[in-house]
């Protein structure tokens, strides 16, 4: 059982992440506008959008079923559980049981599953096709994630995110080359998981009219939007926790936590600034070629595994 302070940390960090998610997507919109050489909205624009959406009518298409209605609740709930388990500002998972990488992978998969299912359940062909793309993407990206994380787990001797992170931070991993390869493969998988160009297949605005989001309106749309931002924040936090844990708080001392928070914010902003520049300077990959790209990821992850076996 986690201690009360750990549990409190878990709850607070989940709430903070949720609250900060629109700030992050607002930041991405600002980066995008700058890349477009236009003024663009303020960084708080996504909060305005969400507040507005919360006041709008929620329309359910006549053909939609209960999954369509449930998803805007299940998806953020699942992600909040992930948020409680991920080491964000600390080097250890606030709730040990949730900090297991297998748990995390499956919680993400659950969120993805419901997201895709809702698209199919909405009755719209756009949403349906976005959904099937989302599932395909899941199938393509999960092996890379699994393999690279397993290599890290083998190297650290634990499947706990906090333990792996601690091992990386103390530079005590058995194989530096294998760690770097695993980090590269995982980073690539995380990038695809972000749903950013050139891999924004499921919500492709021009191709799919925003995929599974097509049929949502009002508060449900707000929930789904905030969930998607939260998910982006979480996968990056996930990557940071495992492969970039430097500077995290190692204890529950308030000063440590504050420093950990500052370091986390800086890391995330830096990563997203790079992501923002990349996503705005490339064309979308042909969906058909995505497997080839993901196979590249599998290749790097496998190589990491070989390096691990060879003890390089």
């Amino acid at each position, binding site marked *: 059982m986690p201690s009360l302070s750990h549990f409190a940390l878990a709850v607070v960090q989940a709430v903070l992440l949720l609250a900060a998610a629109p700030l992050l997507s607002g930041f991405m*919109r600002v980066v995008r*506008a700058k890349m*477009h*050489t*236009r*003024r*663009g*909205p303020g960084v708080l*624009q996504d909060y*305005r*959008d969400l*507040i*507005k959406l919360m*006041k*709008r*009518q*929620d*329309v359910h298409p006549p053909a939609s079923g209960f999954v369509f209605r449930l998803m805007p609740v299940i998806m953020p709930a699942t992600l909040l559980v992930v948020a409680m388990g991920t080491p964000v500002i600390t080097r250890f998972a606030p709730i040990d049981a949730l900090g297991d990488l297998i748990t995390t992978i499956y919680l993400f998969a659950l969120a993805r599953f419901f997201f895709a299912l809702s698209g199919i359940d909405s009755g719209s062909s*756009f949403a349906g096709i976005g959904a099937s793309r989302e599932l395909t993407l899941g199938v393509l990206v999960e092996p890379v994630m699994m393999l690279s994380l397993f290599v890290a787990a083998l190297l650290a001797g634990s499947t706990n995110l906090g333990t792996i992170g601690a091992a990386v931070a103390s530079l005590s991993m058995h194989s530096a080359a294998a760690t770097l390869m695993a980090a590269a493969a995982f980073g690539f998988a995380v990038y695809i998981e972000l749903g950013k160009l050139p891999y924004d297949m499921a919500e492709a*605005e*021009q191709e799919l*009219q*925003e995929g599974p*989001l*097509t*049929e*949502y*309106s*009002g508060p449900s*749309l707000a929930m789904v939007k905030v969930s998607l931002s939260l998910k982006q924040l979480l996968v990056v936090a996930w990557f940071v926790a495992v492969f970039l844990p430097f500077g995290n708080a190692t204890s529950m001392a308030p000063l440590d936590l504050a420093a950990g928070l500052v370091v986390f914010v800086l890391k995330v902003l830096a990563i997203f600034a790079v992501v923002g520049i990349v996503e705005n300077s490339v064309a979308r990959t042909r969906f058909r070629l995505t497997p080839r790209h993901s196979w590249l990821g599998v290749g790097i992850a496998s190589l990491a595994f070989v390096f691990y076996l060879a003890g390089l």
Partner: protein
Amino acid sequence: MTRHITETDVRAAGPFAKIDTPADVVRMKSALLKDIRRSAYVYRVDCGGCNACEIEIFASITPVFDAERFGIKVVASPRHADILLFTGAVTRSMRMPALRAYEAAPDPKIVVSYGACGVSGGIFHDLYCVWGGTDKILPVDVYIPGCPPTPAATVYGFAVALGLLGQKLKAETHVQAEGERVAVAHPSIPYNLRVLVEREARRMAGYRQGGDIAEKFLVMLEQPGLVPLTDRMSTFAAAETDPRVAEILARLGDVVTEAIA
């Protein structure tokens, strides 16, 4: 709350009739306006336009006019829309798709009719395959005239739709005043000569530039003075720095000289 619009409604609406807006919808709309003041999602519905309007809408979301700085975003699905933007004169084939897009958007919603065709059918208003404007099938909240409206006019129109700027245009009627008369222009120049000059100027440089040049020229002709007319005209043309305008002035001078001779 959702009012399903049917084909019968469309037919009953007929030309110039308007579908009534219930009082609660009016109230809801004013509440909506407050909510979307800084975050408005817009869904475009092309009801059979010539694409000039679509292109200018594109121009108003691209860097130079950037509607997103006001929180205005063009969205891909009517379900996300706060504002529906209808362009085109509503062709026979597009009336039902237009109604369905309207129905798909959450209530309440603001309907903006865009461009001369959307506002009133424009140049196509009475054609056989045209319904003649958005308000023949739907209640419209704001009209943005123009053929097509420029991006600046679009930004202004959205500001009006969101209640950020007031409308400038007001219905006005002029009633002829007692003794209201139109004076003949340049009375000291013989009428026939003036017409010759104006026609030649239009032939040389069109109605606007030619008109302005002819006006300048006629004012010069009217000036009293001791300098002979032909000298005055040649000095006037010579003082002109724009070679093309000088050519036109010289031509007008020739017209005057020919007419006098």
